[in-house]
């Protein structure tokens, strides 16, 4: 059953995907595929889970969202526009000279971006430091870190995974967008990280896996579960489709970091009704 609230969320994800394609087409560069695969995850997170106030982005008690897959700025900025952090018109400045909307995430540009990223594998460590610092202050706010599945190849991810369990950190949630594709090829051909869920469990995390990352209700249920885990860090592994929403981009390794042509742009926008 699709509720009214979910219809509302669906229209948000459609707008966000159009923003993503517009931004990358306009900039003639940027990362569509991984932005589209994480769209439902971030939309539900910002709409239903994250404790945040776009009117007061420096609110000390806010939850933190850490974008570890820092190339997915088209999605991050589209989310910030959709939720009122920045004007929608600003999205057209993406990757342009003088814009706040840099190619990869830069802390504070704009307010709402909580970390600098672009080199993979660092976000979980950065988020761990934030969560430990919150705990030292007696704050129970959450930290959510979005990573890719290719990113799991970075050794630092496992340093952070080990340390989070060692320090009995909770309110720290790792969100893994398992779209199965990285820069050069399919992840299973490049460096297979499977079985991912068993690795995180072995490192001492609570794990929920095989969540349909494009099913709004499933995403919300998994995020709610992760938010409420106590005594351990929590990890949700989402099965997603890279380039989701545009047929010829879906599951296509060529749309990791390349912009659409003029013709592809027109076709993409036809497939993404407003």
């Amino acid at each position, binding site marked *: 059953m699709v509720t009214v609230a979910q219809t509302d969320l669906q229209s948000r994800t459609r707008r966000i995907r159009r923003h993503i394609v517009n931004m990358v087409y306009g900039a003639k560069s940027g990362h569509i595929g991984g932005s589209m695969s994480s769209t439902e995850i971030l939309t539900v997170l910002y709409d239903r889970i994250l404790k945040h106030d776009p009117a007061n982005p420096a609110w000390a008690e806010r939850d933190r969202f850490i974008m570890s897959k820092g190339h997915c700025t088209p999605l991050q900025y589209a989310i910030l526009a959709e939720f009122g952090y920045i004007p929608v018109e600003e999205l057209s400045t993406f990757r342009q000279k003088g814009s706040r909307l840099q190619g990869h995430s830069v802390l504070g540009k704009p307010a709402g971006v909580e970390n600098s990223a672009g080199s993979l594998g660092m976000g979980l*460590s950065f988020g761990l430091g934030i969560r430990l610092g919150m705990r030292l202050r007696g704050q129970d706010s959450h930290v959510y870190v979005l990573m890719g599945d290719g990113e799991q190849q970075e050794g630092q991810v496992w340093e952070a995974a080990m340390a989070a369990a060692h320090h009995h950190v909770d309110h720290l949630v790792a969100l893994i967008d398992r779209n199965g594709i990285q820069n050069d090829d399919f992840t299973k051909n490049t460096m297979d990280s499977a079985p991912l869920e068993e690795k995180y469990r072995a490192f001492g995390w609570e794990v929920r896996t095989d969540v349909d990352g494009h099913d709004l209700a499933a995403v919300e249920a998994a995020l709610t579960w992760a938010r409420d885990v106590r005594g351990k860090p929590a990890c949700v592994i989402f099965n997603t489709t890279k380039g989701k929403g545009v047929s010829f981009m879906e599951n296509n390794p060529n749309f990791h970091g390349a912009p659409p042509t003029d013709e592809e742009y027109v076709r993409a926008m036809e497939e993404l009704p407003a």
Partner: protein
Amino acid sequence: MTAVQTTAATRDALGPTLVRLQQSGAVDLVVVDADLGKSTTSRKFKDVYPERFFTFGVAEQNMISAAGGFASLGYTVFASSFAVFVEHAFDQLRMSIAQPRLNVKVVASHGGVSTGEDGASAQSIEDIALFSSLPTFKVGVPADVVEAEAMIEAAAKDSGPWYIRTGRPKIPVLYTDGPRYQIGKADTLREGGDLTIVACGLLVERALRAADALAAEGVSARVLNMATIRPLDVDALEAAARETGAIVVAEEHLVHTGLGAMVAQALATRHPVPMEFVGIPDRYGESGTWDQVLEIMGLTSQGVADAARKVMARKRR
């Protein structure tokens, strides 16, 4: 000012200074460690403030990025390890601290070849080059334990990223009357008109002894302690070049990428004069006692004096 008998390692300043700073209430400290807190002395902070001390195990990359996370909440974060091991996390230093300009102070001990017996792997001879290559980082090398304490305090109260190199050997205490350290200011330890010796770290005391030897030959050497490498005190360097007409730079670091290279670049645009450089030649270190390895590398008062004689000969030509 001349050297006196008291000796101490600059690394010994870290733990006690952090305790004092937290007790003062002037800063809200977090200290992170990667299994070398006994050696860097940061564990002395844990003894008093265990809840503010976080160990990350032998995982420097995670420690450095987590330090950035803590700092993004407003803490003043001190991260420490051996200099060679913080080099292990260079991209994390760049992405998680330098680019977002977060308030993390990396205080790394066992800098330079004076780490001694452990040999080349443990001897950081490239750390000044690496940290000086990061925009937003300030970089300092204290000349003795008194200056190390003052520099750590200054860094704690300054905003933004810092790298401070401390050392393992017990070296003479120079600032017996108390510290004179100011961020970005060279300290003139000895006046002189014929040439200027610019030094940092344990080469400062060796430069002072070289100046004594030169004085016996009728050569008057000014000695500048350049404890802050970045930002460099270019005004003091220009004054030294104009007033003395010759410069020797002495440091415990690769000679082609350290303080000397930065001094030469600064003076090339301000006031070029004959220069000579005392530093580690284009090679790695080896095992030996700390003073033996320094001698192998030519980092002695004799080496500094020889460079001074050479630059004086060029100046007279």
